[in-house]
């Protein structure tokens, strides 16, 4: 099964961290060496992927348009669906990146008896997709309280907002709930929807399981298995990591190392996976090009340089052969001079 292997891989990662950290001295390996390696892979790999994309030529102007293109003055142009200039493209990209606009147009095709084919708007993917992504963003911002000393206002503001419901102690975070809900939907649709299930691969399931593992270990650490989760020791390690003077001052729970190891796996895996849509969304030529093929000439960057060769030049080159073969020429051969 396509999801058995990725699930086993995530379970193996958790076990590696849980067991590995029991070996004396390995706390430094899991707490310092692995995070630095993972961050180096993330940043290096991310830049490598972006630059390799930037080096790929785009032979044709290929924006996807799904609205009325720029035309005669009395025909109303759809500026977002068929942008013709940079500002319209920027507006389109902004809505795509921040509001996932193309998912908003998602439809579901169903065949009824007859046969009768219907298309119906289906916004669930948009809803849970946006829920998941923004929750993840807030979770990352919230975690900055462990990396920044003193904690900036924005971070504590996000945290207070996130725990606004004041449920329990430590207070429940709303984004923890929405992140897991989003993940469960994104996983569930790959199981339930036959079309999506058919095209889902191991590398679709793996990041879902991995992020689910990260969320689960984090939630367990904060709310349930709190023993030895010394937040001050963890913050000292985190601040130490980003100031390049890492220290592990106390015994920290193995669950923390499992959480950290899964995050490191996610960072290291990120540039080489489908998660690169984070950078790729900016690089997509079907989104970031203007639909202005009739206004500006798009030159294929890999076109060879071909010098113009007119018919007159051609005839000049081959005139003698043409006359010899009896092909009519526009300009006769120069009269032979008598010897």
């Amino acid at each position, binding site marked *: 099964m396509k999801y058995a292997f990725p699930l086993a891989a995530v379970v193996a990662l958790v076990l590696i961290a849980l067991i590995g950290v029991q070996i004396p001295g390995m706390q430094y390996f899991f707490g310092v060496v692995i995070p630095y390696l993972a961050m180096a892979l*993330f*940043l290096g790999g*991310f*830049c490598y992927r*972006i*630059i390799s994309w*930037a*080096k*790929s*030529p*785009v032979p044709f102007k290929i924006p996807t348009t799904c609205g009325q293109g720029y035309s005669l003055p009395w025909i109303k142009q759809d500026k977002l669906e068929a942008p013709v200039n940079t500002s319209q493209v920027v507006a389109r990209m902004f809505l795509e990146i921040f509001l996932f606009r193309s998912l908003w147009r998602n439809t579901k095709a169903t065949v009824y008896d007859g046969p009768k084919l219907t298309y119906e708007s289906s916004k669930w993917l948009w809803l849970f997709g946006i829920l998941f992504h923004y929750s993840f963003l807030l979770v990352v911002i919230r975690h*900055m*309280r*462990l*990396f*920044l*000393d003193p*904690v*900036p206002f924005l*971070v*504590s503001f996000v*945290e*207070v907002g996130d725990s606004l419901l*004041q449920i*329990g*102690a*430590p207070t429940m975070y709303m984004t923890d709930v929405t992140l897991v809900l989003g993940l469960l939907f994104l996983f569930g649709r790959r199981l339930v929807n036959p079309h999506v299930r058919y095209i889902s691969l191991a590398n679709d399931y793996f990041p879902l399981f991995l992020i689910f593992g990260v969320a689960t270990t984090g939630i367990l650490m904060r709310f349930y298995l*709190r*023993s*030895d*989760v*010394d*937040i*001050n*020791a963890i*913050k*000292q390690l985190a*601040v*130490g990591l*980003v*100031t*390049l*003077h890492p*220290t592990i*001052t106390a015994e920290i729970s193995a669950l923390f190392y499992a959480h950290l190891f899964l995050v490191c796996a996610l960072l290291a895996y990120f540039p080489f996976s489908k998660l690169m849509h984070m*950078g790729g969304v*900016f*690089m997509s030529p079907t989104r970031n090009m203007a639909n202005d093929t009739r206004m500006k000439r798009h030159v294929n*960057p890999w076109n060879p340089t071909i010098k113009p060769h007119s018919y007159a030049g051609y005839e000049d080159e081959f005139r003698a052969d043409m006359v010899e073969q009896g092909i009519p020429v526009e300009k006769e051969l120069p009269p032979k001079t008598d010897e």
Partner: protein
Amino acid sequence: MYDSGKIIPGLIIFVLFITIPIWYNHGDAGDAPKPELPKDAKNCVLPVEDIRANHMQLLNTWRDEVLRDGERGSFELDGKQYQKSLMLTCMECHTSKKKFCDTCHDYASVKPYCWDCHIAPVE
């Protein structure tokens, strides 16, 4: 490389953004908080590891039992009776909010809402 005028600045902004924690801390890891412990008391209501990890859950349970269920029972510790109370039990030994509670809470940006209802000791 195509569009390098847009892509290279974009990448530089991305890398600077991701490495904000490095620039923000100025390479200084700072000191860990040192909460001031009471001098005369020897035991807390729970062993030190448990109270450090679970004090907020204990206080939350006390709050629910006392205020919502009206169970103002007391518990015994070293032959003395104590109330389930932040102000009368915890703050009896840990007299200073600033020198005890706030040291760790400020460091880790934890904002407990105890003081929404309780009046903090004047310091």
